[in-house]
């Protein structure tokens, strides 16, 4: 019995098709001469058939049966039927069991897809949260009721100030201004991106609020322009394509 014990675990792996190489060869050799182990292998396969029941799910697709019937019509049966050999009595159960097995596979696929959907939903929730944070930052920057405070050296009278934050590779520009003098009606400030070579590019028209604050977020800009300087001029309300002198504020990139 000790020999069979030694092969007991290998038999289960063999039945499932997981035994490879030398171990497989050794077991097959033993099986050829050991009827007890052959019987145990049959029983283990029986256990595998039981396992198939665990996966039986909803009815398999109708077309699977139709396809099989069509194939059988095309397929002449080569061997003559030897009466008494095959027992066809359980044919309906055969079809049901096999189709149930296939249905089980679909069910499992379905289960795996459901898990994948859950994972994606999870990721999506994370991205939503990030988006929400980004939105909050932008809303704070652009809120009309935001308090904007510019800190300067003590005893310096308030100075008009502008800060441009520009990321060339993303063509992204955020501009924040404070203490801007009010403008006559029908006039507005216009921000200009002055590239290292070429003409100034319009980067947004804006009017300061009552406190002299203004923001420009991501104006439309050509891609990947290297900026040398940002400048502000006073233009008609609808903006200009070419700056009108004089430049009222200017700042060069560091």
């Amino acid at each position, binding site marked *: 019995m000790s020999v069979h014990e030694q092969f007991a675990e290998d038999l289960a792996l063999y039945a499932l098709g*997981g035994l490879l190489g030398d171990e497989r060869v050794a077991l097959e050799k033993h099986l050829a001469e050991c009827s007890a182990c052959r019987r145990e292998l049959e029983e283990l396969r029986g256990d595998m058939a039981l396992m198939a029941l665990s996966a039986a799910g909803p009815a398999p697709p109708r077309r699977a049966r139709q396809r099989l019937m069509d194939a059988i019509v095309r397929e002449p049966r080569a061997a003559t039927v030897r009466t008494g050999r095959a027992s066809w009595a359980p044919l309906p159960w055969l079809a049901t069991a096999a189709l149930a*097995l296939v249905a089980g596979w679909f069910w499992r696929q379905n289960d795996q897809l459901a898990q994948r959907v859950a994972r994606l939903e999870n990721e999506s929730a994370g991205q939503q949260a990030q988006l929400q944070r980004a939105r909050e930052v932008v809303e704070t920057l652009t809120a009309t009721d935001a308090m904007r405070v510019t800190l300067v050296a003590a005893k310096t009278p308030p100075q008009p100030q502008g800060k441009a934050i520009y990321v060339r590779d993303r063509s992204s520009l955020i501009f924040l201004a404070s203490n801007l003098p009010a403008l006559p009606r029908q006039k507005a400030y216009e921000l200009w991106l002055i590239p290292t070579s070429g003409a100034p590019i319009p980067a947004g028209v804006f009017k300061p609020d009552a406190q002299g604050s203004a923001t420009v977020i991501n104006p439309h800009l050509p891609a990947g322009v290297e900026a040398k300087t940002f400048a502000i001029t006073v233009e008609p309300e609808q903006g200009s394509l070419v700056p009108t002198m004089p430049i009222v504020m200017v700042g060069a990139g560091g």
Partner: protein
Amino acid sequence: MTLRVLGDTGAAEDVLQEVFLQLWRNPGAFDSSRGNLGAWLAVIARNRAIDGLRKRRPETDIADVAVSVEPDMAGDAERARAMEKVRGALGTMPAAQRSALEMAYFEGLTHIEIAAKTGEPLGTIKTRIRTGLLALRKTFVA
């Protein structure tokens, strides 16, 4: 994703069709000494599906496979009862054992692959797979 499901659905049908056709061409491959026809077919279909999944050639001739199974599942009622018992047995199994058994059975992973995946000793996995199968059988021993 849809394409993937359809691909797999098609593959599962192909396996089934191939097994049925093999039996149709050569009904002598199965006789009652090989056991219950339904159980036999379930085992053959599972093995062929795993062969397909692992992209390897069928290893055993279907005529060589004999299956011995306790419950008679010819009727709907018997089968439903058996199904319930099997699911019950899997449900009460320790999670690690059930998972090892399912990986071996449904995914066709070898004990070596399962051990690599879970980081557990090879011997433990081997034992879990065998004990898992035996636990199913025990459910039907009165």
